[in-house]
């Protein structure tokens, strides 16, 4: 093999040089990625690459499979996006080359994931097979498989594992996640990737559906669907175990049917208060961050899905579940009053603020568009067409703990 290559070498070198020269001539101007973002087009299994400095679309990237419930994390250099798809697909997208770098189908049904503190590992939370799988962020080669506990199911039914939700990265090279069916929180230390160390917390409450990590990386908070309340783990003293907060916030009121699970994301803290969606109620709950006691319940237009703070924390933006998902409400964090009710269009699914908060992008699924709003003037700045858009993710997330 080797001898045959030798005579070809001069030719291939020349060829390579020619190729490189032409590539240089054709390649676009140098650019950075700090103002880029990804918009999930859930119907068509594609992504829009966008840029928020000029509020424009740069490219559509196709072939990502079933994105009905997709989320995205970014590499620490903000060049690559890792997309977690419903069908178990984990796709690494190159934002500069505007194309898929690699893709693996790592499970049957997944919900989301996280990137490790050092950026080397990608964790995916799976419904099927229930548990966490960890991959090398460069190659997407499997690194660790952490199956969730098997469930007791009726005889004759295939064995099922508890479903993993609320996957986040945490300081100390950890991943945390919750188990919907068995009511647990697991904290996995990945310092030694080949032998993950797992700490399990049992009886955290019924059916944790999602979770978040405070932006300082200290508190992991899981929302409960099967009961009113949330489960709190203080990572400064994990040995103290999980504490129940917002216990029985409904005080026995009949909960409304829930047509869309709320999401806990973008930890919403303003001063000493934290804001979370109430499950099955038309309320945003306010907690005192020092003692985790509920201090208020703000009545809103529907069942909240996302409760997001403007980066300066002066406003909270809320979107809603069906049948109120054409509305967005803006809450003033000083007065807890609703200062505006916007009607961007049918099916407002997600909101994302630019890092310094001068824009907020809304996906309006059934209008087939993404709208850019000025959250200070409460006016619309731009509209971009998109195919059934859902999640919007800006690369600034690369440097946020827990996102």
């Amino acid at each position, binding site marked *: 093999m080797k001898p045959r290559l030798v005579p070809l070498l001069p030719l291939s070198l020349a060829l390579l040089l020619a190729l490189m020269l032409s590539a240089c001539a054709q390649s676009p101007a140098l650019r950075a990625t700090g103002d880029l973002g990804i918009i999930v087009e859930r119907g068509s299994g594609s992504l829009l690459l966008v840029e928020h400095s000029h509020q424009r679309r740069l490219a559509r990237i196709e072939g990502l499979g079933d994105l*009905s419930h997709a989320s995205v994390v970014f590499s620490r250099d903000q060049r690559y996006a890792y997309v977690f798809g*419903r069908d178990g697909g984990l796709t690494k997208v190159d934002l500069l080359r505007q194309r898929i770098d690699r893709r693996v189908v790592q499970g049957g049904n997944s919900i989301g994931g996280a990137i490790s503190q050092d950026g080397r590992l990608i964790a995916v939370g799976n419904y099927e097979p229930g548990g966490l799988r960890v991959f090398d962020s460069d190659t997407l080669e499997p690194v660790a498989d952490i199956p969730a506990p098997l469930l007791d199911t009726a005889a004759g039914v295939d064995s099922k594992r508890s479903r993993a939700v609320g996957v986040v990265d945490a300081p100390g090279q950890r991943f945390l996640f919750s188990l919907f*069916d068995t*009511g*647990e929180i697991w904290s996995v230390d990945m310092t030694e990737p080949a032998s993950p160390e797992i700490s399990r917390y049992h009886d955290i409450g019924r059916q944790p559906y999602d979770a978040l990590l405070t932006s300082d990386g200290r508190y992991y908070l899981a929302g409960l669907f099967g009961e009113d309340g949330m489960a709190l783990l203080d990572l400064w003293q994990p040995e103290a175990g999980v504490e129940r907060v917002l216990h029985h916030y409904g005080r026995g009121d009949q909960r409304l049917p829930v047509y869309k699970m709320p999401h806990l994301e973008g930890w919403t803290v303003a001063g000493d208060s934290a804001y979370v969606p109430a499950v099955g109620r038309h309320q945003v709950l306010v907690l005192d961050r020092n003692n985790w006691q509920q201090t208020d319940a703000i009545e809103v237009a529907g069942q909240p899905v996302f409760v997001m703070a403007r980066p300066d924390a002066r406003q909270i933006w809320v979107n809603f579940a069906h049948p109120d998902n054409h509305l967005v409400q803006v809450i003033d964090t000083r007065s807890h009053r609703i200062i505006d009710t916007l009607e961007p269009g049918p099916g407002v699914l997600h909101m994302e603020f630019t890092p310094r908060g001068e824009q907020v992008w809304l996906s309006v699924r059934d209008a087939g568009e993404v709208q850019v709003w000025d959250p200070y003037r409460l006016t619309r700045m731009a509209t971009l067409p998109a195919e*059934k858009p859902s999640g919007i993710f800006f690369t600034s997330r690369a440097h946020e703990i827990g996102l």
Partner: protein
Amino acid sequence: MARRIASVAAGAWLLLALPATTLAAPPPQALTPEHRQRLHDLLVQDCGSCHGLRMTGGLGPRLTPETLAGKDRESLEATVLHGRPGTAMPPWQGLLDQREVAWMIDQLLQGVEP
């Protein structure tokens, strides 16, 4: 405690066995094309939030024609209308009438394309 809850949740969504109420299905062709489009969008986008855009499952169970084959149609309709207590499946009664639910079940049994 956790164990009991787990088996209730998993059992409930696997068995699809709510007591069937008697529901006479009126002819689904009574729906206009616009109405059907709206229901199709609801099925794919909103039901799909939990069951997957391709109905291959998520937080909710898989609802493909193969998994639904042999299930009692009335209990399927009852599940949609009344929900499934103890699970994340809400009752759609009040938002959807029985005729609409019947049409959506037809779609599920035939296979839904997003």
